[in-house]
C-alpha cells in the first residue's frame, strides 16, 4: 500500500469517527419548568366576585350538506381494532361538534389560577379522545395510552416547544404542559398517520368545546363586553361580540358554512 492510499484510508476512518461523534451528540431535551414552579412564578389571580358571574352558552350549527366522514383503514396495525372515521368535520342533524369556543378579547389584564387538575388526553382504538381539547397555559395534560400498541405523540406547534415521544402499551401517562397561548395546535401520531387531534392553549378558564349536539357553555364570566371566538379545524374562525351583565345567561349561537373547495 503506497503512502497516498494510506492517507486516504486515514481520511475515511476520520470521517467514520466524525459520524460516531455526531451520533453520540444527540439533542438534549429542554426540561420544561415544573408546573409547581410555574405556579409559584405566576402573578396572583385577579379576584372575581362569584355572586355576579355570568354564563354564555349556545349551539354551533353547520349550514348546508354535511361532508361524508372518510372511513379510515387501520389494517396496518392489528392492535387498532374497531371502526374509525375522520373527525375533521363532525355534523349530526346540522349540529357541529368539536368547535373550540373561547373568550378571545375583553378580559383585559386579568390573570387566572392554573387549575391543579390535569386534562386527560386518551389514546384508545388508535384514536385520540377527545379530538379537540382545551387547556390553560401551564396546566398539565395527562396523556394515556389504552391501546395494545405503541403510539407516538407529536405536537407540531407554532409558538410552543415541539416534541415527539413514543408511548408503549401499559406505560405510565406522559405529563406535559404548554407555556404559550396557541389555538388549534395540531397533534399527530407518526406511527398511525390517521391519528390527529388539536390542543387549544389559552390563558383564561373561559373556553369550551362543542359536544356532538353542537352545544357549549362557558361559566363564571365576570360582567363585561367580550369577543367570543368559534374555531373549527377545517372551517376556520368566526367571532361574535357579546355583553353580559351580572348573573346573566346569554345564548350565543353560531353557524359555519361549508368551506369553499
Amino acid at each position, binding site marked *: 500500500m503506497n503512502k497516498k492510499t494510506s492517507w486516504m484510508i486515514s481520511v475515511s476512518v476520520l470521517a467514520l469517527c466524525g459520524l460516531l461523534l455526531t451520533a453520540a451528540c444527540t439533542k438534549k431535551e429542554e426540561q420544561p419548568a415544573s408546573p409547581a414552579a410555574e405556579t409559584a412564578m405566576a402573578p396572583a389571580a385577579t379576584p372575581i366576585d362569584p355572586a355576579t358571574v355570568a354564563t354564555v352558552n349556545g349551539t354551533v350549527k353547520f349550514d348546508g350538506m354535511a361532508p361524508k366522514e372518510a372511513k379510515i383503514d387501520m389494517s*396496518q396495525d392489528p392492535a387498532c381494532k374497531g371502526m374509525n372515521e375522520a373527525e375533521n368535520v363532525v355534523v349530526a342533524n346540522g349540529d357541529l361538534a368539536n368547535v373550540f369556543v373561547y373568550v378571545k378579547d375583553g378580559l383585559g389584564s386579568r390573570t387566572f389560577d392554573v387549575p391543579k387538575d390535569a386534562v386527560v388526553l386518551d389514546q384508545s382504538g388508535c384514536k385520540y379522545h377527545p379530538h379537540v381539547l382545551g387547556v390553560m397555559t401551564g396546566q398539565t395534560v395527562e396523556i394515556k395510552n389504552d391501546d395494545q400498541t405503541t403510539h407516538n405523540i407529536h405536537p407540531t406547534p407554532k409558538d410552543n416547544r415541539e416534541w415527539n415521544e413514543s408511548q408503549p402499551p401499559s406505560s405510565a401517562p406522559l405529563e406535559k404542559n404548554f407555556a404559550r397561548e396557541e389555538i388549534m395546535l395540531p397533534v399527530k401520531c407518526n406511527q398511525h398517520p390517521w391519528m390527529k387531534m388539536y390542543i387549544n392553549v389559552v390563558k383564561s378558564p373561559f373556553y369550551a368545546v362543542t359536544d356532538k349536539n353542537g352545544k357549549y357553555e362557558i361559566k363564571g364570566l365576570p360582567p363585561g363586553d367580550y369577543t367570543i371566538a368559534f374555531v373549527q379545524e377545517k372551517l376556520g374562525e368566526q367571532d361574535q361580540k357579546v355583553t353580559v351583565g351580572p348573573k346573566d345567561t346569554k345564548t350565543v349561537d353560531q353557524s359555519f358554512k361549508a368551506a369553499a373547495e
Partner: protein
Amino acid sequence: MGERRGSLALVHQRGNALKTTPSTYNSAHHTFAVFVACATLIVITAGALVTSNDAGLSVPDWPTSFGYLVKVPNFVGGVRYEWSHRMVAGTLVSLTLAIAIWTLLVEKRRWMRWLAVGAFCTVIAQATLGGLTVLFFQPPWVSTAHATVAQTFFCIAVAIALFTGRNWVEDQPKEDQPGVEFDSRRPSLFTLTLLSIFVLYVQLILGGMFRHHGMSWWPHVLNAGVVSFVLAWTAIRAISVYSNIDAVRRPAIVMLSLLITQLCLGFAAFLTRIAWGQGAAQPELPMVAATVAHVAVGALLLATTVVLAIQVWRNVPVAVAERTPQAQRHVSVA
C-alpha cells in the same frame, strides 16, 4: 452545422484527463460497484416510502431506534417504513465503506481513489442529515437537503460503477472517428448536459420542499416544463448528431424515455396528492405508489443525465481551438 473541420492536431477528446493513468478491469470490483448503486436506489425508494406515508418521525430517537441500534421494534404502522429505511441506509453506509476501501486498494487512477473517498464522505453527510431531520422534527430545508444529497450520492455510486466498467477501462475513445462531427454548435452538447443536471437539481429541491411542506406545489410543476424542454433538447441533440457513438446514444435514449415516464408519474402524483388527495384522512395507496415511483424514476433520470454528461465529455470531439484561450492559441500557431 457542426461540420467536421480542422486537422487532427486540433481534435480533442475532453475525457483524456480522466484516462491518463491506465487501469485494468476488475470484474469483482465493478460488480460490487453496480451492487452499491442498486442498493442506493433501494434506499432512496425506502426513503420515499417514509415521506409518502408520513412516517418520518415514527421512530422519535436517532441514531438509536426506540433506544436500540438494531433491535426489531413492533413492526406496525409508520415504524415499518422508518425502521426499514434506517436499516437499509445503515447497510449502505457499510457497503460504501467497503467499496471505498476496495477502490483505494485496487485502483491505480488517483481521481478514482478520491471519488471513492468522496462517496464515503457523502454517505456520512447523508446519514447525518437523516439524523438531523429526525432530531429537529423535519425542518423542510434539512429534509430537502437529505433528499438532494441522497440523489447526489446515487449519482456518485453510478459514476463509480461506470468508471470501473469494462467499456470505460478497456475501450479508449478514438481520437478520429469517421462520421463523428466536432461539437461546434452553441450551446455545446456538453453545456446542455450540464444545464440538464442543473435544472434537474432545481426540480429536486423544489419537489423536496413541496413534499416536506416548505413550499407550494406550483414552482415544482412550473419547473417541470423547463426540465422537459432542456432535457428533450439535450437528448434530441445527442441522438440526432451523435447516434453513431453508442456511449452517448444509449444514455440519451434512456434519458428521454425516463423523462416521459417521469412526466406521467408526476401527473399521477399531482392527481392523487393535490387534486384528489387534498385533506385525505391518511396516506392512500395510489398517492403513495405514484409519489414513490416519481422519486425513484427522478433519481434514475438524474443519474442517467450525469452518465450522459460524462460520456459526452469523454467521447464527443471538440476542436482544441474552441477551448483554448485566444493568447495561448496565438502562441500555439506561432
